[in-house]
């Protein structure tokens, strides 16, 4: 943990959003530390974790920001949307209300995140089959209509957690690498690594991303 000196080709900032108690922190814990805690405390503000994966022989480092779900924290957490290239919008398949609120979260993203942000809708707690309140086809249709990818996961039994993160990171990677082929960024030859944090407005956060990448090279 904490050895940031590891080599990587791309650094992507991803946020986890969604209502309280849908399992955002546990998805993150499962993906980054392979841990699960049935009684994990509510997240206050934001929490950070990271993990690197390989896509097309490239090492992609994901910087993941886990946010508090309560409305009162919105002003604080929305600041973290800036510079994010991906968002996992999580709901609980056993709680209809958390699914209904997905619309509100989407408009949060529209208001505060970059317009090109890649969004994945995640129905978590798929292990609670007997309590299912949101049919998978309904969520699939909604995702299609809103141009989101969709997956159901269970942080508890690990189902699809790796896949969810891999899919969104791959999707982001594809967009970035295609974009690079189409119009290679100016000054790319000067930069030793292929860092191109998608088409985001310059913010403090994305600047940091750049700085970090350069340091590691």
């Amino acid at each position, binding site marked *: 943990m*904490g050895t*940031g000196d590891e080599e990587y080709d791309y650094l992507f900032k991803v946020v986890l959003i969604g209502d309280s*108690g849908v399992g955002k922190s546990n998805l993150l814990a499962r993906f980054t530390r392979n841990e699960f805690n049935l009684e994990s*405390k509510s997240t*206050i503000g*934001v929490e950070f974790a990271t993990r690197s994966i390989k896509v097309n022989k490239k090492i992609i480092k994901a910087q993941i920001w886990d946010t508090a779900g309560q409305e*009162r*924290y919105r002003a604080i957490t929305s600041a973290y949307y800036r510079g994010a290239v991906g968002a996992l919008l999580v709901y609980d398949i056993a709680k209809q209300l958390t699914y209904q609120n997905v619309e509100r979260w989407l408009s949060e993203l529209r208001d505060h995140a970059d317009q090109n942000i890649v969004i994945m809708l995640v129905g978590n707690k798929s292990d609670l089959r007997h309590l299912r309140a949101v049919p998978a086809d309904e969520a699939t249709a909604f995702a299609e209509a809103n141009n989101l990818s969709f997956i159901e996961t269970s942080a508890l039994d690990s189902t699809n957690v790796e896949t969810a993160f891999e899919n969104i990171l791959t999707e982001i990677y594809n967009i970035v690498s295609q974009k690079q082929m189409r119009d290679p960024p100016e000054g790319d030859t000067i930069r030793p690594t292929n860092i191109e944090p998608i088409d985001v407005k310059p913010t403090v956060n994305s600047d940091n991303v750049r700085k970090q990448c350069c340091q590691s090279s």
Partner: protein
Amino acid sequence: MLDLDIRKMGDHIQKYANDNDMNLKNSFWKKNIRNLPGRASPKKESKSVSSSASTSFDDFQESVSDAWEIEAEDEILRISDVKISKRVAHSAAVNVINNHKASIEEIHKSKNYSNSDPQGESSSQTNKESRNTENRVNFSNSEVDTNKLTKFQVLLESNLLNLDDLKKLSWSGVPVEIRPMTWRLLAGYLPTSAERRQEALDRKRIDYANLVKQYYDTDKDEVYKDIYRQIHIDIPRMSTPLFQQTTVQEMFERILFIWAIRHPASGYVQGMNDLVTPFYVVFLQEYLPIGTNIETLDVSSISKKNRDSLEADSFWCLSKFLDGIQDNYIFAQLGIQYKVNQLKELIQRIDGALHEHLMKHGIDYLQFSFRWMNNLLTRELPLRCSIRLWDTYLAESDRFATFQLYVCAAFLLHWRLELLEEKDFQGLMLMLQNLQTQNWTDTEISLLVAEAYRLKFTFADAPNHLTTKR
């Protein structure tokens, strides 16, 4: 009742706006060292600090007077440029604590306290036994001597309590035996007059029972249902075994729900449950033999009457406590954002190297200190340490909101060496989110608040001696 609260909230917001105004005019750390008409001179400031209720730290001043002689502005200027080594700060803090102990011994009236021990048990024996139980809440005094307890008892038994004396004495830690009563008095929940105390206690407990009947046991309005839903999601997520008991969860839900609807401008904010815990655990101990391990305790084994009292006392003390920091929890959590900025400016001023290090690696103060402020460090410290910290917070009473800023600063500075060794954003962030305090005891907290006191004394409202450019 609700009207009153709204008005009060308005005042809070107004106060915040005023503060903010002042901030714009003078900036929090005044940028200008020239004397301006109408501005408090640093001398005056330091005087007002020392004459306040925190004079239990007069000895602190004395013990470090060679280093901190504040006579003239340029003196302060020089001081500000001195890099204060951790060792010096540490030894200063140790001096403070020792001096304090010595002064208590001087006034010590020899008295056999165990007769008046409210628990009727010999606590000193339990002290030794549980000294090593690091990972649970310590119900016994491991580090406070019996002289101090005697002094507390003399104060508490007087007909008309001198609250300032109690605050002075409590600042450096309250002995476990008399902590519940002391906290009730410090929080302003009980009157200083001894003969009115029981009556007031009975009345407040009845008042609380009525609030529960009025708001909780009846059908809840739609707005209230949202609040309840959120509380109901969060409470079962408090991880220790004590909080897995339905009885305990329901008590917390009632406390938080009623607090939330009585404070509509803030309502319930995630993390507030952690602020109930110290009160709850301290008052819970009154109904248990000293040394009981609360982690294995079945709370429903306590009588209904005692549980109701415990719940009511926790509620009222929480209310008094939160009154001073309500702007932390209003829309956009302005109080916290403001304090995070203050923390940043403070660190920049007193430890430029650490500040530059954090900046260089893209660390934003909000990213780590938001939780420190929102939860008053309860998430960063073991519960036993939070309780000790609460002694000081409660002794600071009205000034505690400001004081907490300096506690956060001292807390950050405590880790400066480890942080300076981290060479990238990720390492820093992960460390800051997970500071290793598992083995902390009262000693670390005493040093922490002593350091916070020193920082506040040296830097609060002093003219700016900042040399770094922005």
